[in-house]
């Protein structure tokens, strides 16, 4: 009696070995490191390594080790503080041609990694980092689309020679006025043909024949989806340009984006970069009309009044030659002639063609570069400060076109090398399709992250030790068996978390601590039952058998209800709650296995199949 068939013992053994194997990677050290990689313009070789080593040793930054790779160098440090100092130092020493990524590197041997055995993925609250939740301004995205359609409708009507008033936007409608009904009807056909996603309605008001244009719900959804997708792409490009390892950029809901950057960063710099909207536009100067007239209020219809950086008014043509969207690559540097900061720009084929055509036609005429940026402007309205987003447009340079432009050219007139650098980065990453707002931020400094790990670890160990002492005192040999199961349970939780690469957070550790407390519950139930059976005079073997048998349904019922709570927590929770739910869920499942099957296997080995006079319980 009380013997497991061989297959069952083997199953337990295999699972235990697997658990140990997949939990193993967590034993190895993880060091904060820098991954320095070259680019087309610069390669990482032995010389670079020497430069880096000298620079770091001169600054008294200790290196643990370096490991060269394919045009890469991995430098490991003792702590994240040296890692950060090193990054700052090397940025100036190596210059902009190298990218540096902050990362964690482990000593996990290759054979383990090839089996997919990796250390647990630590959440930002444990490793430090920045979490921001970004809201995409969908109203602005829709408004932009309306603007675009307004222009398109106007062009379409002009092309078809249908006389109409200038289309205007009122709320969610675009209004176009006609003098004659049949022109209006022709216009409806023309617009319907060209733009299938618009809903048109005709209306007659005071002798005017109107068309009311509305975006169809499908089109609205498409615009929102595009804005979100485009913003995700842009944010990803911007973050990648920063050189952060393992960034997370994800959609959340239908208008939010989560950005998570592990490791220590400069949060203010990051937020500035994420929300930045700077871009460039190239326009021809309007030399046919006088600036003075325009200032007096007589702005010619095809032109717009701008200001240069030093405040001088200038009249530019409304038609844009190329916009920032058509820029495919940009890099910053210094202008060879003037020595001032410049951005070198490459255009896509469409942009390049337009630029070539326009510049060929306008040789010796001045062309202006407009720098556009959205800034926040705060004013006191009725005693309350009100923040508005204001688009600032400044002309940064005006120069005569000496010869037709090609695909690549330079733009000067920037204030500082830093501005040139940031502008190049933003142009490279592409523009945001709609303005964004940071609606939630959680930044954890690296020192707090380490404290959280240490404290979390300490409470797990101390909690576990207290429970184990208590169990041995109370249940003796059976208590030892339960303790074995408890430790195995911990190994399993770590193994499953590592296998799934689920994120371990501080509340997650709390969840583990809690499951340690609750995992013994199953064993307590079983052992109490065994004691009861002994109490009513059953033999030791029969008591063990009945104890496990009778406690089973109770354990399952009790755990399933807790599982329900964990699942609900997971599906409704965000951040901290999710982390807790994950470990609670995993912990309940693994504890059922270790507490029921695991302890039974050991108890059977100790007592099974022999004559036992008395149980040590």
């Amino acid at each position, binding site marked *: 009696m009380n013997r497991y068939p061989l297959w069952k013992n083997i199953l337990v053994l295999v699972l235990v070995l697997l658990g140990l194997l997949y939990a193993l990677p967590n034993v190895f050290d993880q060091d904060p490191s820098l991954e320095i990689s070259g680019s087309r313009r610069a390669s990482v070789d032995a010389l670079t390594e020497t430069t880096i080593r000298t620079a770091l040793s001169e600054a008294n930054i200790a290196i643990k080790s370096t490991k060269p790779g394919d045009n890469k160098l991995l430098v490991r440090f003792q702590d994240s503080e040296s890692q950060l100092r090193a990054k700052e130092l090397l940025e100036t020493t190596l210059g902009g041609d190298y990218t540096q990524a902050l990362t964690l590197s482990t000593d996990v041997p290759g054979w383990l990694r090839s089996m997919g055995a990796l250390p647990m993925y630590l959440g930002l609250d444990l490793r430090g980092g920045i979490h921001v939740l970004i809201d995409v301004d969908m109203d602005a995205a829709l408004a932009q689309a309306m603007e675009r359609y307004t222009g398109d409708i106007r062009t379409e009507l002009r092309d078809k020679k249908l006389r109409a008033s200038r289309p205007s936007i009122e709320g969610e409608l675009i209004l176009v006025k006609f003098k004659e009904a049949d022109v209006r009807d022709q216009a409806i056909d023309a617009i319907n043909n060209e733009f299938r996603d618009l809903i048109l309605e005709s209306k007659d008001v005071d002798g005017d024949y109107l068309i009311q244009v509305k975006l169809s719900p499908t089109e609205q959804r498409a615009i929102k989806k595009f804005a979100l997708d485009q913003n995700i792409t842009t944010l990803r490009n911007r973050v990648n340009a920063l050189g952060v390892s393992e960034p997370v950029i994800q959609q959340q809901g239908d208008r939010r984006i989560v950005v998570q950057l592990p490791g220590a960063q400069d949060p203010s710099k990051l937020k500035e970069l994420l929300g930045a909207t700077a871009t460039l536009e190239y326009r021809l100067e309007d030399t046919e009309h006088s600036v003075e007239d325009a200032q007096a209020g007589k702005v010619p219809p095809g032109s717009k009044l701008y200001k240069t950086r030093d405040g001088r008014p200038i009249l530019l043509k409304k038609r844009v030659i190329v916009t920032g969207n058509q820029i495919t690559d940009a890099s910053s540097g210094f202008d060879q002639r003037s020595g001032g900061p410049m951005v070198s720009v490459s255009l896509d084929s469409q942009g390049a063609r337009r630029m070539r055509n326009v510049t060929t036609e306008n040789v010796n005429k001045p062309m202006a570069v407009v720098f556009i940026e959205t800034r926040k402007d705060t004013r006191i309205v009725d005693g309350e400060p009100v923040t508005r987003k204001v688009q600032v447009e400044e002309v940064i340079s005006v120069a005569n076109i000496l010869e037709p432009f090609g695909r690549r050219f330079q733009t000067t007139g920037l204030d500082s090398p830093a501005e040139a650098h940031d502008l190049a980065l933003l142009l490279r990453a592409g523009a945001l399709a709609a303005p964004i707002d940071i609606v939630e931020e959680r930044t954890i400094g690296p020192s707090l992250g380490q404290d959280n790990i240490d404290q979390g670890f300490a409470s797990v160990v101390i909690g576990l030790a207290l429970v184990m002492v208590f169990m041995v005192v109370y249940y*003796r040999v059976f208590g030892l068996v339960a303790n074995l199961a408890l430790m195995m349970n911990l190994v399993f939780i770590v193994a499953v978390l590592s296998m799934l690469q689920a994120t371990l957070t501080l509340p997650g550790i709390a969840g583990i601590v809690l499951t340690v407390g609750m995992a013994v519950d199953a064993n307590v139930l079983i052992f109490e039952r065994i004691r009861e059976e002994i109490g009513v005079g059953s033999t030791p073997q029969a008591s063990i058998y009945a104890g496990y048998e009778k406690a089973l349904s109770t354990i399952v019922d009790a755990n399933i209800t807790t599982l329900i709570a964990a699942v609900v927590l997971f599906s409704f929770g965000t951040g901290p709650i999710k982390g807790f739910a994950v470990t609670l869920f995993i912990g309940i499942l693994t504890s059922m296995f270790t507490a029921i099957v695991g302890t039974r296997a050991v108890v059977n080995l100790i007592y099974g199949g022999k004559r036992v006079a008395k149980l040590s319980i």
Partner: protein
Amino acid sequence: MQIFKKNTHIDFMGKRKLAMYISIALIVVALGSILVRGLNLGIDFTGGTLVEVGYQEAVELAKVREVLQSGGFVDATVQHFGTSKDVLVRLAQQSDLQGAELSDRAFMALKQADAGETTLRRVEFVGPQVGDELTEDGGLAMLYALIGILVYVALRFEYRFALGSVIALVHDVLITIGIFSLFQIEFDLTVLAAVLAVIGYSLNDTIVVYDRIRENFRKMRKGGSEEIINRSLNQTLSRTLMTSLTTLLVLIALFVFGGEIIHGFAFALIIGVLVGTYSSIYVASTAVLMLGISKADLMPVVKEGGEVDAEP
């Protein structure tokens, strides 16, 4: 070793009136406090900005307030967090600055406190809109957890047990939240998670007792409902207390060693485990007794369908 004699004969149900008065009194106080004083909601729910900095040396709060004032933060509340070197600052929402920028400026100001190197330990900014969503999600989570459990227990046992367990859960949750309200301890997302875990834990306890009650109703030929429930409670008493004790041990470890951030979480669970243990003995069992559970309700229909004569 055994704490209790093998066979305890405590008349739990005999004191159910007293327990009921205690429970009602506790709930009235909890509800009253929640209604009158409200909860000290953390920024997760209210929205706002929080900055935690670590100084190299111990720093006086007056000094920190002073540098914040001169930095333009008039409404900031300042407290030590864990040690006298760590300072937690809560900033009121200022409409002229986005919260994300607010924290940067506050950190600049905090650096002026002359207490050695200042490190940014934590920034939390929650926009008012997100706060509302989190509150709503939290409430929904609680509701769905209760419904899910109600359905499961009704299916596995009987509707009176389901009602009894939910009464016990509401009792536990109300009292736990009530204590947070009464002492104005900050209620944030992690505390909410803990309250939901209390639901899971308290239920665990209740189910174990119910399981035994069901078993004894089927097994014991003699005795009324009250006697059977008493018997079941005595039989499970040792287990109930053991499990509460081990869980409390780890929670105390978490409370003491887990760091300041986890305090609220651990505290909510400690309260929850204490109340949950009490409620699984007194509230849940009293509830099924008062709902009029009888042997006939629990007899497996197929096997022993004829024994309806035991109805009280």
